[in-house]
């Protein structure tokens, strides 16, 4: 086992080809499950699989060891066919302790593979997890193929001579589990070994220890007579191109870098740390060699305020936050819309209300985004449909902000922000530019004179001679921008601001209908539910049902052809991770008796859930 090569001394066992596999790694918050899952995902991506991930971790950084509160999980579906979701239910569950087993077993498919770190299955840990009888002995695992392996002890033995402390050795057991999974799915170890060497470059003994644990796991699979077969998931036939694996938050940050180039503007991100949005700041702050600047403010009010100040200065102001942060920002968003400056607000939605479920996903901020301010205060709202789509959505939202001189809210959510999928890299020179036209001509300048088409006012950079002007939150004269309390002027301005946002719909491309253009049921979705809806609708269509789907990127204004499309179907069903927010908007706007499928559990839809809920509407 000490061979430097990772080539196996044992002949390979018979290998079975699978189309798609869903694995879930789960353990204590300190067990490194997010790291293990991410690394398995990375290796699968490099092997050419299509995939999606679902990290699921507690809000507490380190809840008491061994308790249900501290369980952290990472699920990945990888496939040789297109993948739309992280998978409904894992076929393989790796459980590092009893608490992880207890909170995840219900999801494992009957007959699925269960790998247990028996070393952590002690009476003390059973007690902490609240087990009253031993699940290993009471028959509760009889429906699964259980592999009970003392990963703790095997890792300790393998690393005994390394000189690492007991604590350091304990922390390497996730690499044993990863090694075993790499072997089981016929993956090479080299990419992971290389990664460990880079990650622990400053502590080579830790790198070596982790590598040893990884190999120990890999060779354990190979040597132990426990596993009868290994599996191969062939590369997926994705469209030709160069790919990388990306999370929604990374894609959002890279989108902002791209905007700085495409708009020829400095992107100024004013933000305040908040789960699950902070990674946007972490990623963007690395790229100071582009025309981007990140500012960590004292609170969300200052974050969006600084972004708006930057917008006044002629830059693209951006803020990234989650629902509670948006609640604090709304007054400033109202100011931005009345002074008519471009501003991008990215809301990575999480479970609410209040602090709610910081690490879990939800789509319950749609009405907050559209209606959550005082007065008549229209703001364009967009939603991203998946991790990679966050890149395109940021470009589109920024384009609208600049073209129409308005704040724009972009909704993503915890699921796609942290989840990963392969992203076909765009060709940079083919991305459309959208440079703003700053006004420099002082002749006949009126602060609120408007572009006849978009109704956007001219953007003037301070520093431009002869165009000194004042803006503010008080109602202003429709042309000069001077403070005005005139009743007719106020009504005109309220209507003009509404009309400006409504006109965005004039330039939206037609909606595409997934499936036939008319039929019995139209499934209308938005945001991160895209993959699950598409897969469920495909399944039902394959069974012969007249069901189609439309997925919305533009939530406000709604696309102009939506009403007509809704009319072509007998029933409209709107699945949402809330109590029916889009449903309410659609009913109010189109007088259509739209039905809803609602889930508020902090988790994305499963395809199977959608299928059975949609079957109710199909006879």
């Amino acid at each position, binding site marked *: 086992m000490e061979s430097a090569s990772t080539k196996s001394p044992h002949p390979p066992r018979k290998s079975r080809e699978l189309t798609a596999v869903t694995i879930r790694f789960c353990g204590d918050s300190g067990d490194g499950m997010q790291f293990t899952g991410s690394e398995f995902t990375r290796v699968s991506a490099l092997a050419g699989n299509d995939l999606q991930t679902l990290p699921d971790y507690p809000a507490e950084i380190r809840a008491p060891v061994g308790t249900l509160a501290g369980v952290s999980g990472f699920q990945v579906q990888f496939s040789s066919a297109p993948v739309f979701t992280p998978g409904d239910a894992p076929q393989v569950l790796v459980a590092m302790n009893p608490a992880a087993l207890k909170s995840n077993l219900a999801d494992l498919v009957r007959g699925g593979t269960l790998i247990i770190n028996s070393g952590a299955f002690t009476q003390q840990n059973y007690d902490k997890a609240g087990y009253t009888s031993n699940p290993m002995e009471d028959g509760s695992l009889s429906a699964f193929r259980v592999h009970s392996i003392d990963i703790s002890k095997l890792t300790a033995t393998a690393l005994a001579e390394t000189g690492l402390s007991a604590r350091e050795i304990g922390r390497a057991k996730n690499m044993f589990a990863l090694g075993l999974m790499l072997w089981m799915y016929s993956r090479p170890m080299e990419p992971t070994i290389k990664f460990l060497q880079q990650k622990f470059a400053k502590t080579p003994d830790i790198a070596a220890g982790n590598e040893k644990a990884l190999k120990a796991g890999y060779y354990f699979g190979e040597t132990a007579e426990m596993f009868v077969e290994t599996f191969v998931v062939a590369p997926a036939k*994705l469209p030709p191109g160069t790919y990388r694996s990306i999370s929604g938050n990374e894609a959002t940050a890279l989108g902002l870098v791209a905007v700085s180039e495409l708009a020829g503007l400095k992107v100024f991100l004013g933000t305040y740390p908040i789960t699950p949005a902070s990674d946007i700041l972490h990623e963007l702050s690395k790229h100071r060699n582009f025309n981007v600047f990140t500012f960590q403010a004292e609170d969300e009010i200052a974050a969006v305020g600084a972004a708006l100040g930057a917008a006044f*200065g002629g830059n693209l102001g951006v803020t990234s936050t989650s629902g509670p942060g948006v609640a604090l920002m709304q007054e400033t968003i109202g100011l931005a819309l009345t002074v008519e400056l471009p501003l991008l607000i990215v809301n990575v939605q999480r479970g609410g209300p209040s602090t709610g479920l910081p690490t879990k996903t939800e789509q319950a901020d749609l009405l907050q985004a559209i209606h959550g301010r005082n007065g008549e205060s229209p703001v364009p709202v967009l939603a991203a449909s998946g991790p990679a789509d966050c890149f395109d959505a940021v470009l589109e939202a920024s384009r609208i902000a600049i073209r129409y001189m308005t704040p724009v809210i972009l909704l993503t959510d915890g699921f796609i922000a942290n989840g990963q999928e392969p992203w076909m890299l765009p060709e940079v020179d083919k991305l459309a530019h959208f440079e703003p036209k700053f006004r420099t001509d002082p002749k006949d300048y009126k602060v609120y004179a408007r572009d006849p088409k978009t109704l956007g006012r001219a953007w003037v950079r301070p520093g431009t001679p002869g165009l*000194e002007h*004042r803006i503010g939150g008080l109602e202003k004269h429709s042309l000069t921008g001077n403070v005005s309390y005139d009743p007719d002027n106020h009504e005109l301005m309220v209507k003009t601001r509404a009309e400006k946002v409504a006109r965005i719909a004039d330039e939206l491309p037609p909606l595409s209908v997934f499936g036939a253009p008319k039929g019995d049921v139209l499934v209308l979705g938005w945001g991160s539910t895209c993959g699950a809806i598409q897969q469920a609708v495909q399944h039902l269509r394959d069974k012969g049902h007249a069901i189609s789907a439309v997925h919305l990127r533009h939530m406000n204004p709604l696309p102009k052809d939506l009403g007509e499309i809704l009319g072509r179907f007998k029933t409209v069903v709107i699945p949402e991770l809330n109590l029916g927010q889009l449903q309410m908007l659609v009913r109010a706007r189109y007088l259509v008796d739209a039905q809803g499928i609602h889930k508020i559990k902090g988790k994305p839809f499963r395809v199977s859930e959608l299928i059975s809920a949609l079957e109710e509407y199909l006879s």
Partner: protein
Amino acid sequence: MTETVQAKLTRKDFQSDQEVRWCPGCGDYVILAQVQKLMPELGIPKENIAFVSGIGCSSRFPYYMNTYGFHTIHGRAPAIATGLKASRPDLQVWVVTGDGDALSIGGNHFIHALRRNVDLKILLFNNRIYGLTKGQASPTSELGKKAKSTPYGTIDAPFNPIHLALGAGATFVARTSDADPVHMMEMLRRTAQHKGSAFLEILQNCVVFNDATFESFTAKDQRESKQIYMQHGKPLTYAGGTKGLRLTDGHAELLETASGATPLTWNEQADVSAAFALASCHTPDFPEPVGVFRAVDRPVHHTLQEMQGEAVLKKLGPGNLSKLLKAGDTWTIS
């Protein structure tokens, strides 16, 4: 515009076409006049100057200045101005605020702008009352103040704005009053010249809701005996040089110069504790200090930001979007 034309700018060039709408007799008029008078001598083209304000009587200020201006929302001017200055270091950015705006609803942004040493010129019009909402107690109203919101007197102790600014790490802290335009002009000039956050408290009279609140020591006939003018390098004396202040055990102590006691020579760069001690002096036991409490150099926010940007650029080279997107592990499907 050429340099020569700019040099000819006058006070009038800084007056906007808007009618000033403060109450007749409001102290804000004096401040506006002095600021407009100061502007031409700064030698900065007016298009490179921006006034940012929050909400309150004072915050209408930008509308009357013919520069770039942004009348924002209650308390947030320092945050919005920080974003403006950080993204546009080439502009001179002024913040106009009041005691309610800066110290109550905007307290957080106020202290954070100061601790970051953002190059903002912050003018706080302190009239110890909420004027625009018609007369409620403010965070600088004296204990026991009877106002519309506190008919039996406020039970909330006031902030000392100078202490607050010093505690937040402000690099320039000064005080003046609307009753003394000459002194105000000098303080405004110092505020404009300072590099970093400059905080000027202007004792300002609200003629309608809190008239004459500072009159007992700012009135022309009282100043000499009730105010002490802090001047760098000069002894702290007042009342025609007959009285003075010195520090004993960290506290200000009154002295009669005739007794032979030596007044403290004021040093704007001295340990901050001296400024704290001076800012604790109030009538009737002490004279009210006006002038510069503190003026020190500390790295300015946008300078640090520029240095960091240059260092990163040197380390990473100019950004290449195509390369950035392809960074890390990629694979190709043909």
